[in-house]
């Protein structure tokens, strides 16, 4: 698929609405995933790697695994709290 032309040129290679929306949703999802990963990296580095050694210890590795799971769980708790328990 070649790049789209600007609307004002009126040429024949225009996106359909569906194609455009698919691309938009994909890009939004990718941006969101990258931002989420960056946040988790920051939080778990802070919690689990208190004194960086010459390699990751076993306890640091398991801390990181638990941290990722807990952060995902926290996101769910906050999300449900905001959107399914109105006052």
């Amino acid at each position, binding site marked *: 698929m070649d790049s789209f032309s600007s609307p004002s040129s009126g040429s024949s290679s225009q996106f*359909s609405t569906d194609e455009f*929306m698919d691309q938009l949703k994909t890009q939004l999802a990718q941006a969101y995933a990258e931002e989420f990963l960056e*946040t988790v990296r920051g939080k778990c580095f802070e*919690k689990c790697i208190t004194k960086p050694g010459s390699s990751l210890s076993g306890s640091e590795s398991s801390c990181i695994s638990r941290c990722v799971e807990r*952060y995902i769980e926290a996101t769910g708790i*906050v999300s449900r709290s*905001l959107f399914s328990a109105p*006052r």
Partner: protein
Amino acid sequence: MDASSLNSAELQRLISQEKERAMMNEMVAKLTSACWDKCITGTPGSKFSSSESSCLSNCAQRYMDMSIIIMKRFQSMQI
């Protein structure tokens, strides 16, 4: 599959919806980050304690309460 131009009202409506969704995701992300810092004080365990999970849930709702107060206060200050 239609071939509408990029200026249709329908497309604008769909884009608005996605924008709304993205803003909600952003709010959840920001709140989760702030509430994590407030509520998860120790090393992450294999599950949340009940005080940790209620703290997270309360945190989000108190933030929303605070938002409303701030808006009202701000509105009452406008001349």
